[in-house]
């Protein structure tokens, strides 16, 4: 058997694939963060909580209305997205134009409240949620046993990431959004309804988090704390990728997922901090991040 650093090649391939799956979540979440930051100049600390809300909506939809996974995959992001819209309308818009730190602090409070509320009503040990029957079981890839559901996660996240990237970078809508970030009044003077745009953007970013949440529900325990564990890592991903760069967020998400996966094989003790270490190095060598735009 071919060995690489003392690890059989097939095992290595397996771990790479697993890293990619992990990266799918990072990519989806950092994409949403990057969009919200890019357009609203708000670091959405509540992103993790909204991811959790996505997973919980799937669970609640199932328990109270009987709507299963596929329905939830569409409905949960919409519902959570609408909540995002409401939050933006009522609160966030009062913070535009202020120091972005206030946005960070507000969403931090929001995250605490959301998580606290769910912990209060649903306890901390979480709720069960099963993968859809169509994706149950797994496939033997030769080098590893691959649960079908995980394959689907990779595919779904790729589709959504690329679609979102296209929407923002390649359409007129995206140009409005980017311009509005810099000078919303002027874009309005040009005849674009910016407040509505911003609202929708936040809704979209939040919906992406919720989508990731639904994807995660069958893999991870649906628990009020699921978001706060992952959000700090995703922050690091975004810093490494370069804030505000959509492509950067996506690519870095996958890359760091893989890096983390490999660390789990070679030096598992360090897998929790490997992303932070990478971040430190990137900051030393390229302060703007891998994909950041800075002279």
């Amino acid at each position, binding site marked *: 058997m071919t060995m690489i650093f003392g690890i059989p090649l097939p095992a290595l391939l397996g771990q790479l694939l697993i890293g990619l799956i992990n990266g799918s979540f990072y990519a989806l979440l950092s994409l949403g963060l990057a969009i919200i930051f890019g357009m609203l100049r708000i670091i959405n600390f509540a992103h993790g909580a909204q991811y959790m809300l996505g997973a919980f909506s799937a669970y609640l939809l199932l328990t109270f209305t009987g709507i299963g996974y596929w329905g939830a995959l569409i409905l949960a992001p919409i519902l959570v997205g609408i909540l995002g819209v409401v939050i933006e309308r009522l609160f966030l818009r009062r913070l535009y134009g202020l120091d972005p730190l206030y946005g960070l602090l507000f969403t931090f409070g929001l995250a605490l409240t959301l998580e606290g509320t769910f912990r209060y009503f649903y306890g901390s040990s979480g709720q069960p949620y099963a993968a859809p029957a169509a994706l149950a079981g797994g496939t033997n890839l030769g080098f590893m046993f691959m649960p079908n559901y995980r394959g689907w996660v990779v595919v779904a996240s790729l589709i959504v990431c690329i679609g979102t990237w296209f929407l923002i970078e390649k359409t007129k809508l995206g140009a409005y959004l980017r*311009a509005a970030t810099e000078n919303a009044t002027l874009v309005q003077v040009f005849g674009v309804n910016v407040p509505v745009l911003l609202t929708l953007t936040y809704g979209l970013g939040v919906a992406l988090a919720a989508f990731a949440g639904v994807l995660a529900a069958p893999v991870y325990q649906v628990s009020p704390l699921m978001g706060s564990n992952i959000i700090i890592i995703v922050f690091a991903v975004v810093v490494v990728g370069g804030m505000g760069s959509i492509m950067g967020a996506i690519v870095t998400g996958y890359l760091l997922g893989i890096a983390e996966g490999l660390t789990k094989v070679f030096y598992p003790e360090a897998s929790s901090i490997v992303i932070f270490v990478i971040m430190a190095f990137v900051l030393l060598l390229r302060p703007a991040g891998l994909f950041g735009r800075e002279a």
Partner: protein
Amino acid sequence: MAALLDIKGLNAWYGESHVLHGLDMTIHDGETVTILGRNGVGKTTTLRTITGIIRSRKGQIRFDGKDMLSVPLHRTAHHGIGYVPEERGIFSSLNVLENLMLPPVVGKNGMSVEDIFELFPNLHERRHSPGTRLSGGEQQMLAIARILRTGVRMLLLDEPTEGLAPVIVQRIGEVLKKLKERGLTVLLVEQNFRFASRVADRFYLMDHGQVVSEFPVGELPDRMDTLHHVLGV
């Protein structure tokens, strides 16, 4: 000639501070009118109030017969008013071409992109650079070009020559003349008196948030004394 823009008794405030005190102004279709005045008399404020950026305003603004006071900010452009701000407002996250294409087209007699690039060859050359990586003068051109594409009927231009090389100032003068031939109405704010006198049909002189005098270009020589006094030119 019909009055395209008709302003009566306009008052405007920045928070507590009252800046425009009953301003009256009438601009006819196809005219180029220049507002003159010292620093801080409220020229920029006048333009910002017309577009609706400043919402705390009282009085009357009619554009093409319609009352503009109740129009939301993002609808102003659709009525046919285009604005080029003093600070130019080029977007750094958009490249030159994207900046140019940004404002939605609101009228039918907008210029085509080809025409624009012919008028401003610099922009064509730098079309893929980020907007704010242009020099000051290039940015000014881009800001004007951007509005020309949308086909508005009236252009509000705030100090388009500030910080520009003489040769560019001259070019912008030519552009304004061409726009006039195309039937565009222009309301221009200028400190550069020499430039203004070349392009304008008529002048308003502002002081303390009011129009203090109004005269056509022909009367300019007779007025030089007052202008000297008020503007220090």
